[in-house]
């Protein structure tokens, strides 16, 4: 009688009565009551069964699926959790958690478990449990064999697509560096000029000497030249030779390391606090100083890669080198972590994800994070690859859990005598702590004095007082010793403590939904022997670093060479500097890029070598010109480098230049600037006149100006800064106390340095300091007119208003 007309008729007859509950619920209820079990079907003919199955599905299951499930689980709308229920193929294949339905076995079917709301982690539909009757319908349908007349659905169009792995394997960035670079072209200009002639563009002439020198100073040191330096170059009788010498001079200046380190700090999301509660990373500055030192001494970049990822796992007997290796690993630990997250398993995986994201973008130009929840949709990075690498990073401990988990500051190795001194202090501290605990216990054991002093005799009272005195003394000792022990230098890092192990795939990124365990490894699309092997007992972190820096890895050298190019020219040969995947851009000059990458590798990964090649080229030194003959219309973005790009000062350069002009800039290098008593970064007052790179980089309190002038978010890896022109920038330049103070200081400087006190002398000197040139006649006239309006006594100091205006003017902010 299961699917007979009687049931259907009774549904219709019930229809009019079903006002409150709704027609569907009632009809489902009736069907459910009829579905006693599948056995009754067996006696019927196959043909009849077929028809009845179909009826059952069409009448009850399909409407229920449509009403409750398909909104989120169909190929027409979306496939949440990877599951579609619009075909038999869909539920057979299942979602990320596996097959949804096991025909005949409702208790083993995930779909049934989900709609029963049995488990807290898997409850569907998410907003409300289905009516019990509907659950029964699904159970009965599954137990009866889950007959689904919809069959294959759209299986065919789904499987027809090539996997991204296949499609991407012949994408340019995954191919080995091209070796057939012709000797004739082997210079930056060789490649650039060849392209120019191909597209029939004329190259602009070199920029004015003054502009070339200013450009070089800013690009290599982040500071403007002195007007004397400019004068010397203007007077040069052999400019080419002197330009080359100037390049060498600047590359060896201390400010070079600061300037390049700052660019790399964007990429590694360098910061000294987290936004959560403004907690301060007190040791992070050591990593900043490592970067400055490393770039200054032109440390091989491959070595820097290795040190930043796995410096702790390297060895070196030289204590100075060992120090650098250790502090480099702070790279792994400065993410903007939400230490308060309560699900600590999830927190640990978020932490690893952040590390992978930065490593992927910074070194490989890959968006590895996409594969956390599903295979990368566009690039050859599978979820297996993701968890293979995640397993490596998970093998290190980065957090000590508490309500707000703690990061890890490790003691730095010290010279023997210092090591002994701190060792002694530690053991003293331990013994005091132990002693204190014992005494405190005694205190508790003593009978309490409760108002009735007669109950304690004088002796006992004396003893108690003595004990209290002792405890007080011990507490003071403990505090004092702790303070001394805390002085021991530490560094922010991650540590490998326990045996490494492989981790399972986290289905859809969920730490509570685990799939297959994946052996630790790297991106399978880039196989480089012998680095693919992780020795027994090792976590694989060192091997990961070696795999990344291998000259056979086609991505690493390309990505870095392109970065250095973008640092000098303002844009990359590959515009998406941190995305070399298939969703990124393709190189404008592929051969030039490969040549630069090869030069990098062949010259011991020297950053300075690349910079020399670039800044000595004609392409770098061209005039910022816009006549159509130089391709302004044909090539508005200047992708062919037929002319110079307008360079504007970064936030730090702008800030440092003002301090430089006001005569206040303190060029001291290195060391921590965070004031010792700082508990939280919120409302931190920056007061130093050091270069911007040394200011505590606080995520909740950036130094003045930085925030407004496109300083990148220090919470994520940034390859290319945004470039905005906004009214808030104008407000800061006109009104901020900080800029006003610099203008005032510069006015004072002019007054003390100029012998004459007439405005014309001041104006002349101010232009030399700010722009390293004399004022034009128009400019002089404008400025003098301002001074001459003497009747206007509204300004406390007209000279200050002038210097202030020069800081805000376009020549101060934009190079020619």
């Amino acid at each position, binding site marked *: 009688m299961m699917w007979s007309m009687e049931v259907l008729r009774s549904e219709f007859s019930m229809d009019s009565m079903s006002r409150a509950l709704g027609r569907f619920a009632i009809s489902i209820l009736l069907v459910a009551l009829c579905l006693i079990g599948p056995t009754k079907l067996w006696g019927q003919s196959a043909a009849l069964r077929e028809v009845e199955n179909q009826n059952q599905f069409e009448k009850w299951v399909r409407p229920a699926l449509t009403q409750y499930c398909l*909104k989120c689980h169909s190929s027409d709308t979306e496939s949440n959790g990877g599951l579609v229920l619009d075909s038999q193929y869909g539920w057979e294949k299942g979602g990320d958690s596996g097959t949804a339905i096991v025909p005949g076995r409702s208790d083993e079917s995930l779909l049934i478990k989900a709609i029963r709301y049995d488990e807290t982690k898997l409850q569907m539909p*998410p*907003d*409300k449990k289905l009516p019990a009757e509907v659950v029964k319908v699904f159970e009965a349908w599954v137990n009866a064999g889950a007959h689904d007349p919809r069959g294959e659905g759209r299986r065919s169009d789904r499987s027809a697509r090539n996997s991204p792995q296949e499609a991407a394997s012949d994408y340019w960035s995954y191919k080995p560096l091209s070796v057939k670079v012709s000797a004739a072209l082997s210079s930056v200009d060789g490649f650039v000029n060849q392209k120019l002639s191909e597209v029939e563009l004329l190259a602009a002439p070199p920029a004015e000497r003054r502009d070339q020198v200013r450009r070089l100073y800013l690009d290599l040191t982040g500071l403007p030249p002195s007007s004397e330096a400019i004068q010397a170059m203007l007077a040069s009788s052999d400019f080419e030779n002197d330009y080359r010498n100037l390049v060498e001079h600047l590359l060896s200046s201390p400010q070079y390391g600061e300037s390049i380190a700052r660019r790399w700090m964007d990429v590694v999301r360098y910061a000294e606090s987290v*936004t959560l*509660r403004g907690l301060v990373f007190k040791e992070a500055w050591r990593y900043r100083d490592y970067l400055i030192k490393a770039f200054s001494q032109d440390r091989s970049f491959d070595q820097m890669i290795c040190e930043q990822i796995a410096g702790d796992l390297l060895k070196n007997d030289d204590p100075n080198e060992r120090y650098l290796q250790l502090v480099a690993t702070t790279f792994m630990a400065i993410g*903007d*972590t*939400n230490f*308060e*997250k*309560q699900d*600590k398993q999830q927190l640990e995986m978020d932490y690893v994800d952040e590390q992978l*994201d930065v490593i992927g973008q910074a070194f490989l130009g890959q*968006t590895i*994070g*996409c594969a956390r929840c599903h295979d990368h949709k566009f690039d050859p990075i599978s979820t297996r690859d993701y968890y293979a690498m995640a397993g490596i990073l998970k093998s290190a401990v980065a957090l000590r859990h508490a*309500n707000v988990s703690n990061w890890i500051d490790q003691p730095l190795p010290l010279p023997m005598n210092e090591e002994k001194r701190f060792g002694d202090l530690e053991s003293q501290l331990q013994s005091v702590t132990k002693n204190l605990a014992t005494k405190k216990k005694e205190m508790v054991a003593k009978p309490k004095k409760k108002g009735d002093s007669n109950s304690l005799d004088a002796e006992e009272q004396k003893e108690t007082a003595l004990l209290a005195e002792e405890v007080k003394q011990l507490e003071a000792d403990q505090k004092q010793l702790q303070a001394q022990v805390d002085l021991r230098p530490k560094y922010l890092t991650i540590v490998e403590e326990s045996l490494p192990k492989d981790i399972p795939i986290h289905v859809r990124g969920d730490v509570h939904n685990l799939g297959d365990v994946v052996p630790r490894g790297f991106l399978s699309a880039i196989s480089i022997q012998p680095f693919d092997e992780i020795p027994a007992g090792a976590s694989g972190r060192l091997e990961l670093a070696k795999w990344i820096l291998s000259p056979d890895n086609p991505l690493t050298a390309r990505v870095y060479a392109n970065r250095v190019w973008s640092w000098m020219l303002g844009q990359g040969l590959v515009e*998406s500097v*941190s995305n070399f995947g298939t*969703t990124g851009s393709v190189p404008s000059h592929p051969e030039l890029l490969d040549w630069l990458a090869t030069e990098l590798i062949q010259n011991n990964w020297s950053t300075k070598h690349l910079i020399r090649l670039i800044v000595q080229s004609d392409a770098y030194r061209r005039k910022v010109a*816009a006549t159509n003959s130089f391709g*302004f*219309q*044909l090539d*508005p*973005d200047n992708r062919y480098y037929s002319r110079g790009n*307008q360079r*504007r000062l970064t936030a730090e350069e702008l800030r440092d230049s003002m301090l430089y002009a006001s005569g206040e800039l303190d060029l001291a290098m290195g060391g921590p600037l965070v004031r010792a008593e700082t508990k939280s970064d919120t409302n931190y007052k920056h007061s130093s006149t050091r270069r911007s790179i040394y200011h505590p980089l606080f*995520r*909740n309190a950036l130094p003045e100006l930085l925030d407004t002038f*496109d300083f990148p*978010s220090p*919470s*994520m890896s940034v390859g290319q800064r*945004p470039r*905005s*022109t*906004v*009214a*808030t*920038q*104008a407000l*800061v330049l*006109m*009104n*901020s106390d900080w800029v*006003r103070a610099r203008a005032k200081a510069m006015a004072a400087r002019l007054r003390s340095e100029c012998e004459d006190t007439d405005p014309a002398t001041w104006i002349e000197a101010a232009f030399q300091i700010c722009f390293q040139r004399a004022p034009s006649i128009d*400019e002089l006239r*404008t400025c003098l007119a301002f001074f001459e309006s003497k009747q*206007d006594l*509204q*300004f406390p100091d007209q000279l200050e208003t*002038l210097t*202030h*205006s020069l800081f805000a003017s*376009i020549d101060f*902010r*934009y190079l*020619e």
Partner: protein
Amino acid sequence: MFENSFSRRSMLRQSACGFGGLAANALLGRVHSAMPSSGLVGTHHTPKAKRIIFLFMFGGVSQVDSFDYKPALAKRHGELLTFNDARQLAKTGKATEQKLMASPWKFKPYGQSGRWVSDLFPGMAEHIDDLCLLHGMHTEGVAHGPATLFLHCGSTNMTRPSMGSWVNYGLGSENENLPGFVSITPKAPGGPRNYGAAFLPPKFQGTRMVSTNTEQFTIDNLSRNDLSISAVAKQVDLLQRLNRNQLNRRSIHEAELEAALESYELAWKMQRLAPDVLDLSTESKATLNMYGIDDPATKDYGQKCLLARRLCEAGVRFIEVNYGGDTGNWDQHSDLPKHAEHAKAVDRPIAGLLMDLKQRGLLEDTIVWWGGEFGRTPYSEGKGTGRDHNPGGFTVWLAGGGIKAGFAHGETDELGFAGIDGRVHMHDLHATLLHQLGLDHKKLTFKHAGRDFRLTDVHGHVVHDIIA
């Protein structure tokens, strides 16, 4: 010289202008006309609302003591029951025994809809027929840090743009002289990330408004107090003359330089006009009283709510009015009765805001969103005198902007712990709010690091049941 042939990229880069468009827009007029006139994306369907005022109750208001009336809880006070307490579950994966705690406040029905509200909020209760209560809210994050970020940015840990930034990215500003996204005295953990643009262009980041003294609000660096307005005018004149001199010396006039010049004009305009919007002293005494500004207990939040209305009139798209910071917020782990202090501080100001918006006809196209980052448990924390965080079931209300009025959607179980019907995830709420503004949360995307990102990640459903 540079009339045409700007690529889309250089155009976007060079005309990326601050609060609203700079003259670069005029400069690039013909190119720009190909783009949606207001925002970068434009609406996807006809909007029902133009802006949002978000009254953020930081710390987490207890639903069972305010809008989610549970008579059973009073009856079963003191009973020991096993709960899937979110914090314990996250830490240990286990359910724990907890002691039910009745609400110390009395409830009574209000308005035509007859919905029950506790004595905590008598002022808001008078507006019950304007509100749409969402009783089945749930969210991510058991602690303030993660949950607050999730509320603002749709992620507990990753760096993502704030909702106000998404809205401005989608719709653009209604007023070129003011920022499109304002956060009034933000103090919650997560700091600038809660109103940051993350990877969206910087012009979409929220602007912080701070109070300079007890009467006046301002934007950082809006003006200087040591110069008269005519002196500032002379300073701007000098600067712009110098700028034009310098521009003329250059071989080309790149649009970026023109935009820089224009940014000073706009800043100068803002400097003159914005203080008027931020100045509450021109409001009538009756209005000030309506917001409770006459009472020291309600003055602070009252002023912020009044400022929100003024910003709303001035065309700001997304205004967050923060209540509570590191010191003093709704986070009553112990001493639940302290809720009364906070309720007192916000109730009259919010009632005043609702009344004022309604009187001025602004409620029709403004959504007021009231709520915290999560709710609180119906049992006491550690069997003490307060309630712990509860992300699994809590109440948020919306008013205006095409949302059903005098309506309630969803419910928690009989004790008010977990949403059991009409559950609305924070992603769903985000999706619904965007929907009312004419934005499809699935189409409002931005390409970053190789893929399209959106506020709701891969989640979120518009809650059509609450749309009028």
